[in-house]
């Protein structure tokens, strides 16, 4: 069986080193702004803005959108949206520097790319739903919550990994 050796593309940072740098970034964020980085909030702001632009009355009547609509200022004007922009730029930079820019569907050889896209979409739906319940995702609730020892963050992280391991066996065909 030929084992083809991967090129430079898959030389990633040592995970401990990556964790160290990430920890320093989070520390820096807390020191300067008093809050930690996050990600799901940017997605939520986008949806709120789009719904507000397309159907303003519906948005006002809905109790959830109403929380985030500010009179006279777009809901997109939040810290997280700018940070998400930075995330896109940073990811692109790193990919470009390591030669990883490529438009393709990454999937296990045991399934087709079509199936992968459908499963990814489904996974995203679950994740979006769950992130609203937990008021954060692994970055916002997990890293930032855990950094200040928040109880909610701790519970969320445990539940995420618990839920993941619980279902991992049943969807293993997608990955291995």
């Amino acid at each position: 069986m030929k084992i083809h050796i991967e090129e430079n593309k898959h030389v990633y940072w040592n995970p401990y080193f990556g964790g160290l740098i990430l920890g320093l970034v989070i520390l820096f964020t807390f020191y300067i702004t008093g809050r930690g980085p996050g990600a799901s909030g940017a997605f939520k702001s986008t949806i709120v803005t789009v719904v507000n632009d397309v159907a303003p009355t519906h948005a006002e009547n809905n109790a959830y959108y109403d929380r985030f609509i500010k009179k006279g200022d777009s809901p997109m004007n939040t810290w997280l949206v700018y940070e998400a922009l930075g995330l896109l730029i940073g990811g692109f930079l790193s990919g470009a520097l390591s030669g990883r820019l490529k438009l393709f569907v990454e999937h296990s050889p045991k399934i087709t790319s079509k199936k992968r896209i459908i499963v990814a979409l489904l996974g995203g739906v679950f994740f979006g739903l769950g992130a609203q319940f937990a008021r954060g995702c692994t970055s916002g609730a997990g890293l930032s919550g855990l950094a200040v020892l928040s109880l909610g963050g701790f519970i969320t992280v445990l539940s995420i990994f618990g839920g993941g391991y619980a279902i991992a066996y049943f969807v293993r065909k997608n990955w291995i």
Partner: protein
Amino acid sequence: MSNTYKIKKVVVKTEYKVLAAILIILAGGLVLLPKYEKNSGIKPESFLLNIMSTERYVTTDQIANKMINQDPNLLLIDVRKKEDFDKFSLPNAVNIPLAKVLSSDSEAYLNQDTYDVVLYSNDNCYADQAWQLCNRMGYKHIYVLKGGLNEWFNTIINPQEPKITDSDLAFKDYNFRKAAAMYFGVGNKTNTAPKVKPKRVIKLAKKKKKVAEGGC
């Protein structure tokens, strides 16, 4: 390739052992460092400087002037006991007895940036003590009425007539004080009840420690 089912011993690289040791030592250090009570409030040196300066004093003339002009930033606080406050006090003053200056209810009046707070009592003594407590806590815009209510009586309610040889300024002050006395209802020989000026509504905005916004 044959599979042996023994658990292979994982050789941990020395760098990782060092890193793990560093992490544990750092965390252990946090536990072992001596904990001390953190000082909330200003440093002792600045406190001493503040005590020695006389910037905090305001005179009765200044206060009377502000009251006549209905200065909206003025907030008078009487630090005597409640009984004394009920018997007589300056119009639109709030009573916070000295014992309660540090309580959380009074914090709304004292720890804020909207008003200039003037503390007063019969003489300087209680007001100065109250001022020291506030200054130690780092509250800003706190002043003391020099001479307290006794001085108030001597200058505004019952101003002393200046002698012929006194300066022009003394005469101006005297006239001002007489006018102020009229304003405050002195010499109102008729039995009509003094006009009750509408009670000022004091909007309190407690200066909270700013907690960062965040979420999601």
